């Protein structure tokens, strides 16, 4: 059971962030940016298919990745709160990507070395993708932080919006502990120092300082989400909900 949830959490993180990024398609600040955000979204949707497919297989109740993506309600989604945050302006989108992709790199590096080959194989493939995402996001943090007064102010505001959701990335619970026992887990809490170091280095290059510490907002892993997720799901799941039983 808990390994199902574990795979589902990984799939949900990628799915929800991929869905968010795909909202930019056709509306980004420049064509090159549009293409790069779509690339990231595509990678994430691919990861979601793999992790959710694995979750369904482990669960063994005949649910595939689509059943999990399109026919669960908010309380059964287990993504972290960070990825469901609205795109906001481009700086807010970049802040979200920056915090998440650096976490994802560290996480997947460990997962790629896991005993459970099913998880390790997906992680190894995804790792190449997310390394690029982290670089892309970091480059934009630096450009925007160092660019104009306006871009700097927007980058600060974007980081400020997202910062309360960073701690959740590193919280360990029973599901994580059970996954470690089963040979598929990662000690997320142990990733924090390396993550802090990477984030601080990029912020320094951007001429920015890390936002002030604040009380963490938690709950995504157990289905306690922000108000934003329900709207995202109602849009994403519309066809599957409106035409039950149809295939596409």
């Amino acid at each position, binding site marked *: 059971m808990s390994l199902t949830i574990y795979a589902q959490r990984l799939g949900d993180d990628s799915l929800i962030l991929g869905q968010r990024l795909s909202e930019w398609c056709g509306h980004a600040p420049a064509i090159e940016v549009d293409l790069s955000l779509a690339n990231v979204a595509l990678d994430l949707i691919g990861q979601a298919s793999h992790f959710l497919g694995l979750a369904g297989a482990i669960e063994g109740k005949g649910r595939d990745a689509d059943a999990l993506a399109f026919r669960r309600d908010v309380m059964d989604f287990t993504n972290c709160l960070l990825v469901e945050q609205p795109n906001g302006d481009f700086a807010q989108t970049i802040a979200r990507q920056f915090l998440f992709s650096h976490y994802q790199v560290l996480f997947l590096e460990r997962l790629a070395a896991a005993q459970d080959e099913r998880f390790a194989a997906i992680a190894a493939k995804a790792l190449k993708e997310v390394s690029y995402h982290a670089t892309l996001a970091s480059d934009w943090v630096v450009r925007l932080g160092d*660019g104009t007064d306006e*871009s700097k102010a927007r980058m600060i505001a974007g980081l400020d919006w997202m910062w309360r959701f960073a701690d959740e990335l590193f919280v360990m619970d029973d599901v994580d502990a059970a996954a470690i026992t089963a040979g598929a887990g990662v000690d997320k809490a142990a990733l924090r120092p390396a993550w802090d170091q990477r984030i601080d280095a990029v912020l320094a290059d951007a001429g920015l300082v890390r936002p002030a510490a604040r009380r963490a907002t938690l709950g995504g892993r157990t289905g306690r989400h922000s108000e934003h997720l329900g709207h995202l799901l109602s849009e994403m799941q519309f*066809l*599957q909900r409106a035409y039950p039983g149809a295939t*596409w």
Partner: protein
Amino acid sequence: MYTTDLSGKNKAEAVSEDAAKVAAFEARVANDEFIEPKDWMPEAYRKTLIRQISQHAHSEIVGMLPEGNWITRAPNLRRKAILLAKVQDEGGHGLYLYAAAETLGVSRDEMTEALLSGKAKYSTIFNYPTLTWADIGAIGWLVDGAAIMNQVPLQRTSYGPYARAMVRICKEESFHQRQGYEIMMHLAQGTPEQKRMAQDAIDRWWWPSLMMFGPPDDKSPNTEQSMRWRIKRETNDELRQKFVDITVPQAHAIGLSVPDPALKWNEARGAHDFGEVDWEEFYAVVRGEGPVAKERMQARQKAWDDGAWVREAARVHAEKRASAKIAAE
């Protein structure tokens, strides 16, 4: 995606040009040689190409909007990924077409401003709304199908950078066309609601797709000169006929009907006879009076305006880093 010239007549600007140079140019074109950016070319040829290539690029970029409208609502993960990749391809096409136009001495910013001011046109087809998921199938099948019809001959167009861009674009468009038809096929074999959706989509997209080939030959002011310059290689009506002949059997094969009571196979011609396009509607859409023309332009304007501070930040940052590098050397 769309290559039929929608603008007015070319001015006779060649009069002041060196007759010997013009003759040599025309001979090269007649001989099917490629004209390259550094080669001498008549001013009217350059202007026609800038107009046509930039119009084509704008169509790719505006064309991201109707399909982008369904990315967040795609019915499953596979369809979502395919659609996202497809819309991303259109953006890529826009990028290399802008780059091809830039070789003729116009900047991307100038072209973008011409689009946003309404001075430059884009394909009429994108001024129609995407109402159901079947529209994504119909666009791939009919709209990209019509685009391929227009674009295959352009792989041999006389201007080298344009022809080479078209080779790459055509490969991707044929993938788009197949995925669109596959969506339609799936819907046509689906539930009664899905069949209804598919038929409704072809009913709405059929005529606008035929309009994509541009006005009839006798009302296409630039066709003759463009054919002579080998910017264009087949006439609007020839291409339209070809499209009808290929597409009608595809519709029938999946049990969809084509919304044209006059449509009939003509044994003697070896081609379909078909009804008259509503040219009044076409010209209205060209004038910017299409059903969602305002929404399309508003979306492009908003992306451009909202992105201004990002582009400015990137520019300023690059300058700062460049001058820091010089200072360090």
